[in-house]
């Protein structure tokens, strides 16, 4: 239930045993390695090897991606890593070289395929350019005869023979023959034959017209050239198909490439640890943190099996040690929520068990529907507790399973099961009045009470946060701060709570017959207390407590200020913090609002669904509208419950005491992507 105690371990060993010790530690996944410092040691240069491994890894992953494009692999939403015996995973260098070559090959082939596609595109552009000259019965590269010149090309826009003729006449170019090959709105293609003597004039004439010569020429007739190019495309396509089948065949090697990827990942991890070791001529030194409960076991193992020497000690500075949390199975799933905020620092206690209790409580109150809760329990119970997922991935689902349990309980408290479906079905189809009675209250009818109830739970939550801070300060021997800063505020809040309770008891009345059982019980409890006169006692205690606390805060709040005016102002200003506590407590009204929201929207879905009345159509309609509507409501309210539960923990609760900033314990472990390696 707490932060795990860590031992600092320094391992001395011979180079001969280095590899096996490294592998042993890698497999055990227990030591959080840190760098060995000191001038007596030489460090092994590992950067080069690591970047080489990283290149291989990158290329192999690329190859896998390419394989995935050609032969997609079915992978579920929750695909797990495959298990592989340790013998198979130990690739020797010939094997890994061979697989690497395959991966390289796949990448090369895929490059070639891409190149082919580019070539085809180029050829197609050529064909498009040639298409304009299909009417020309001479190859495009003909430039003329001894005394004549030939020019084919394009003019932009639509041109007529008359227009060109008149332009030629205007420019006194009489010895010119031309033919229009094709004409469209975009361009007109044509060719000219003219006497060599006109060469100069013709050139400037054409330039003025914006005449452009063909981008592609050929010694074949244009039509033939296009056909030839077609054949070329066919050839390239055939080749591409060959490449594609090659890749598809290489898909068989996918497992090997995956193994290579994992192999490289492991080697990178090992070399990173190697780089942190200190070396002498014959020995090496590694250093790290091991949880205390395992440290002696590891020491014994390394010393007996690998003739190493392991020195265990308390961490020199507790702040340096990495932080790991250990909790019972009920609260452990919430560790991740705490870790996402920040790992506890040396002065913190592990808040996980308290966070867990309130996490489940708040989630349940905000989601508040037994039907939805059962759905969550079924799905997350399976994912969280069966062997379908790997152990590390189950925690999250376990958390939601407990949230689902709480949701179901609160659904019964509120009398909500898929909204009011239990009331709606008998009423719509059989005309029978039946209803699921809430145990505690109906959120719509007793919304004000639920609001007060929510804020009260919030007040309790905030007070617990303050108590933890109080305890932390006492533990740090800051007793004055604990009493004056935290204790007095606690007194004020507690007094306010008592005042509220007193008022509540004073207002207790005999409940109506239809009141749900638990609310009725609360009402009678209130009545009894009222008879005993508890309300006036509580009010009195609350009032005096609040006054004492408030005065205490004003007097002591500015004690750290050096000047007298500073002390006075500090005290008064400090009292202003009350706004913070008020808004924090009010913030818990979301417990009521979101709980209400999921119930009311569920009811509306049922209302809409039951409009078809008692008929076959009505049944189908209820099923359809109900399924879609409840799924939507489920999704959006579960999201809301999740987000706001986190918020209440992080913003309202953690801000009261949590320092955070600890370094997370991340042991040297086999962080693979595709395979889990087992011992046998």
């Amino acid at each position, binding site marked *: 239930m707490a932060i795990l105690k860590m031992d600092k371990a320094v391992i001395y060993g011979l180079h001969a045993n280095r590899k096996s010790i490294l592998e042993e530690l890698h497999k055990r996944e227990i030591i959080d390695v840190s760098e060995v410092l000191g001038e007596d040691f030489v460090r092994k240069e590992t950067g080069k090897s690591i970047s080489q491994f990283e290149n291989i890894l990158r290329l192999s992953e690329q190859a896998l991606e390419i394989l995935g494009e050609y032969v997609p692999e079915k992978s579920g939403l929750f695909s797990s890593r495959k298990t592989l015996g340790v013998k198979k995973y130990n690739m020797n260098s010939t094997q890994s070289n061979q697989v690497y070559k395959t991966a390289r090959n796949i990448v090369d082939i895929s490059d070639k395929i891409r190149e082919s596609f580019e070539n085809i595109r180029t050829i197609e552009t050529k064909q498009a350019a040639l298409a304009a000259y299909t009417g020309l019965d001479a190859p495009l590269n003909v430039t003329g005869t001894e005394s004549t010149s030939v020019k084919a090309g394009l003019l932009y826009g639509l041109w007529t023979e008359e227009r060109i003729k008149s332009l030629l006449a205007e420019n006194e170019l009489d010895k010119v023959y031309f033919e229009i090959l094709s004409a469209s709105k975009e361009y007109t293609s044509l060719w000219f034959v003219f006497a060599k003597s006109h060469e100069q004039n013709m050139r400037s004439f054409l330039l003025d017209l914006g005449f452009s010569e063909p981008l592609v020429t050929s010694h074949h007739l244009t039509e033939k050239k296009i056909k030839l190019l077609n054949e070329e495309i066919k050839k390239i396509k055939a080749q591409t198909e060959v490449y594609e089948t090659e890749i598809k065949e290489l898909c068989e090697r996918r497992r090997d490439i995956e193994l290579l990827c994992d192999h490289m990942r492991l080697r990178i991890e090992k070399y990173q640890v190697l780089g942190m070791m200190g070396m002498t001529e014959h020995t090496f030194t590694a250093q790290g943190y091991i949880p205390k409960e395992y440290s002696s076991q590891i020491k014994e193992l390394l010393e007996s099996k690998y003739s190493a020497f392991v020195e265990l000690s308390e961490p020199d500075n507790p702040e340096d040690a990495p932080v790991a949390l250990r909790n019972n199975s009920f609260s452990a799933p919430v560790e991740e929520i705490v870790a*996402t*905020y920040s790992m506890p620092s040396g002065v913190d206690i592990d808040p996980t068990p308290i966070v867990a209790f309130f996490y489940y409580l708040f989630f349940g109150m905000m989601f508040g529907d037994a039907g939805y809760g059962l759905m969550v329990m079924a799905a997350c119970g399976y994912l969280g507790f069966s062997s379908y997922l790997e152990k590390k991935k189950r925690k999250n689902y376990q958390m939601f399973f407990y949230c689902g349990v709480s949701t179901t309980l609160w659904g019964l408290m509120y009398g909500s099961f898929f909204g009011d479906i239990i009331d709606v079905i008998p009423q719509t189809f059989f005309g029978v009045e039946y209803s699921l009675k809430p145990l505690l209250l109906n959120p*719509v009818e007793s*919304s*004000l009470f639920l*609001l007060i109830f929510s804020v009260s739970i919030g007040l309790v939550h905030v007070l617990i946060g303050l108590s933890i801070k109080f305890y932390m300060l006492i533990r740090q021997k800051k007793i004055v701060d604990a009493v004056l800063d935290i204790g007095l505020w606690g007194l004020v809040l507690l007094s306010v709570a008592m005042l509220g309770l007193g008022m509540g008891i004073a207002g207790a009345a005999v409940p109506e017959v239809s009141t749900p059982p638990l609310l009725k019980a609360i009402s009678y409890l209130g009545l009894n207390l009222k008879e005993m006169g508890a309300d006036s006692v509580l009010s009195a205690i609350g009032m005096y407590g609040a006054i004492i606390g408030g005065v205490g805060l004003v007097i002591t709040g500015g004690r750290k200020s050096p000047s007298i005016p500073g002390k006075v102002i500090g005290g008064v200003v400090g009292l202003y913090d009350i706004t913070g506590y008020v*808004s924090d407590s*009010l*913030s818990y*009204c*979301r417990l*009521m*609002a979101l709980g*209400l*929201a999921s119930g*009311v*929207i569920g009811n*509306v879905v049922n209302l809409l669904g039951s409009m078809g009345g008692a008929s076959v159509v009505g049944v189908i309609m209820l099923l359809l509208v109900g399924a879609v509507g409840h799924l939507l409501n489920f999704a*959006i309210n579960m*999201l*809301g419950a*999740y*987000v*706001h539960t*986190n*918020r209440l923990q*992080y*913003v309202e609760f953690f801000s009261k005491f949590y320092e955070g900033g600890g370094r997370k314990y991340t042991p040297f472990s086999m962080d693979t992507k595709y395979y889990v390696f087992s011992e046998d």
Partner: protein
Amino acid sequence: MGIFWALLGAALAVGMAGVGSAKGVGIASEAAAGVVVDDPSKFGRLLVLQLLPGTQGLYGFIVAVMVLLNTGILGGEAPTLTAGFVFLAACVPIAIGGLISGMAQGRVAASGVNIIAKKPAESSKAIVSASLIELYALLAFIISFLMVINVNTVTAAVA
């Protein structure tokens, strides 16, 4: 005439809060789309931010439904003129609160998308920041809700 004012209130509650949510979700989703282009695997985390400004619309919807139920319109009754006005007044908090907080939350969610794009590990901080605004929508909702469900008793007492 009472029915007109009551329905106007319901319409404003669901309409204005809905506009706030639509705008908010819109702003957040536009930002999120930019990130998904580069890294589709972040979609799940981004979805939370995209949907956060969507709750205002729901609150408006609930208030509108409560108006419909409490006026008895669904049962074929019509509220008095006074009651109609009071229902309209009761809808104002969530209409205005939902409209503006939805848009504001959308902007915060959009900046949160930025956080997720650059530092995915800090996504919970982005989500918590966006949820800070939610409180004001919630307060508006609770006030509207409490007003709506008590209109009938109050107007009966006045009459």
